[in-house]
């Protein structure tokens, strides 16, 4: 089996090189619009995806991510715009003539065909000689670890096995682009996490280009090299998982991706920190006092802003840190109201004296609870200006 994989990987490498040589993206979505009646499901959306990428489309339900995927597969025809695959506009090419395959959320396995025949379905349509089909099916069966189940019908398989058949079937034709519509949504948590890693490894080994649609941000973060966050038919931000989390471009994304504390306020030009040399902005928040933040890369245009800080960057202590270290430049006092022990970490809610509630999560690095705080205890929440984000409202 390992030989098969190595062979597949070699083939993938040989295929990747010419594409890498040309700097043209594998897929270019160019100002695509899809309307359902008056509703613009996908609204003038543009995106480039390069060969070998693992790209995730993330967004709440109804944001248009599935519609976009269905346009790539050919099940929907865009009202405007172009979809270029290797430079060729495929926007109006029917699905059965596209070098693109899709893995369906429901798997859509053919119930009347065995595992083997499900995987061979696309190969037969492509007119592959029977001997080659058998070889390719065997290769795919080995790839997704389904040996011994070839003769079974889909209803004789477990959910995880069905998911593998669907994957093998969609990979069998060696598509230039594989689309995955919520591929892991039907699996339980443990199996989902394992399958995520397997999918990533598979994608790397085969050197294929994957576009996955998901509403699960953890899944997108784990698997994808780049994530496109969609809302109301538009791409709000396209970035690596780290950028998306640490430098969200808008308040909406900051709130959508992960947990975050938000404090509304205005830029206070009068007060500039004298404690450090680095440029700082002081933001006078409505209910958390003054918060110092690192100057954003792009100059703020509005005075009404929002300070955002991730809970894991907020530390708690009984007394204010003694040092003048800039790491503790922001010190907000308050009372612990909620403690949730989550195993690896503990999450606290602190009601600040200014009235706001700040969330802090701290890793439980020791087995004994030396550092824990209990409700109604007075604490100082402190964090560094570098960890704060300033977002325009």
């Amino acid at each position: 089996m390992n030989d098969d994989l190595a062979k597949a990987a070699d083939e993938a490498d040989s295929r990747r090189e010419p594409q890498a040589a040309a700097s043209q993206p594998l897929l270019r979505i160019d100002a695509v619009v899809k309307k359902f009646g008056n509703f613009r499901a996908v609204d003038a959306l543009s995106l480039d995806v390069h060969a070998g990428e693992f790209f995730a489309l993330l967004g709440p339900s109804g944001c248009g991510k599935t519609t976009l995927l269905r346009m790539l597969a050919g099940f929907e025809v865009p009202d405007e715009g172009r979809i270029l695959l290797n430079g060729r506009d495929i926007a109006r090419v029917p699905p059965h003539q596209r070098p693109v395959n899709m893995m369906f959320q429901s798997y859509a396995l053919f119930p009347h065909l065995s595992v083997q025949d499900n995987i061979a379905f696309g190969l037969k349509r492509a007119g592959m000689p029977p001997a080659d089909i058998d070889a390719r099916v065997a290769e795919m069966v080995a790839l997704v670890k389904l040996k011994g189940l070839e003769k079974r019908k889909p209803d004789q398989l477990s959910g995880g096995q069905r998911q593998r058949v669907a994957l093998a079937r969609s990979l069998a034709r060696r598509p230039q682009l594989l689309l995955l519509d919520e591929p892991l949504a039907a699996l339980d948590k443990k199996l989902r996490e394992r399958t995520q890693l397997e999918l990533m490894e598979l994608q790397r080994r085969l050197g294929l280009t994957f576009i996955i649609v998901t509403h699960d941000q953890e899944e997108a973060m784990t698997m994808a090299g780049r994530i496109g966050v969609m809302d109301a038919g538009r791409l709000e931000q396209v970035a690596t998982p780290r950028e998306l989390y640490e430098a969200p471009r808008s308040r909406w994304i900051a709130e959508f991706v992960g947990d975050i504390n938000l404090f509304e306020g205005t830029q206070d030009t009068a007060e500039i920190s004298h404690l450090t040399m680095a440029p700082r902005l002081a933001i006078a928040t409505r209910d958390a006092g003054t918060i110092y933040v690192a100057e954003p890369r792009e100059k703020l245009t509005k005075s009404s802003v929002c300070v955002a800080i991730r809970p894991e960057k907020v530390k708690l202590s009984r007394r204010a840190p003694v040092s003048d270290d800039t790491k503790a430049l922001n010190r907000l006092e308050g009372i612990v109201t909620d403690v949730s022990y989550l195993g690896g970490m503990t999450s606290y809610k602190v009601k600040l004296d200014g009235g706001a509630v700040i969330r802090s999560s701290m890793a439980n690095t020791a087995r004994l609870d030396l550092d824990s705080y209990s409700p109604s205890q007075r604490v100082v929440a402190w964090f560094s200006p570098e960890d704060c984000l300033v977002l325009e409202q």
Partner: protein
Amino acid sequence: MSSSSLFTRPARLAAIAPYLWMGLFFLVPFLFVLKISLSQTAIALPPYTPVFDMGEGWEAIKAALAALSFDNFKLLVSDDLYILSYLRSLMVAAISTAILLVIGYPIAYGMACLPQRWQGVAMMLVIVPFWTSFLIRIYAWINILQHDGLLNQVLLALHLVSAPVVWLSTDSAMYLGIVYSYLPFMILPLYATLAKMDPALLEAAFDLGASPRQAFWRVTFPLSLPGVGAGALLCFIPIVGEFVIPDLLAGSDSLMIGQTLWLEFFTNKDWPVASATAAVLLLLLLAPLLLYDRLQRRQLEQS
């Protein structure tokens, strides 16, 4: 928990109700028919011998049993009339079922493709003719098909024919009547299987490179086979025993088994031969009936 306490008493009664029904209204009457088919015709009331009389004691019943014979069944095999009737019935049923399938499948497919809210309307349109009496609808066809009926008037007006065509008392008229009457029985099971098919399966077929035609023959059609089987048997079985439509619309030169049976019973007053005819007909239909039952059971297990 033991399995007997799994069901409450009323539930257990409900479970035997179908068997009770079958026993009372099918098995017992069939045993009567079977007994009559083994008797001899007689000018008496009832018109056959022997007659079981419980009042005359064990010896009389033994004598009656000894008088039963398979003569009527031998007659059925030896006389062309019956064999030809059976063959004609099976042939008419087979041809009608084939025509019904060819007409019914596209209609059912079209219905299943309609937007949800129009599917109910389409279903109504298929069922509504059934709100009128079956006989009235067949008489209406006689009206349309007769010498100066609507069909001939239209054909003449369009100058498609120069003289009225003879429609009535032909096999064409009979097939028309049968197909017309049984079409809903073909459409509804087909529609039921097609409508519940996951549209993602067709998309998957397209996605894997199947043209619309290939997708139909490789995915839609194989998956609709339970519906095809149910529809075909639901039509085939009653058409074999059909009496009214061939009697009213077909010619009298060759008879279906239902007509032969009617003649034996009402015209010849030969109850035993008529009963034997019915018993053999049931035997012939046993195979398709069992097949239908298996199909239905598998459907139930799947859902």
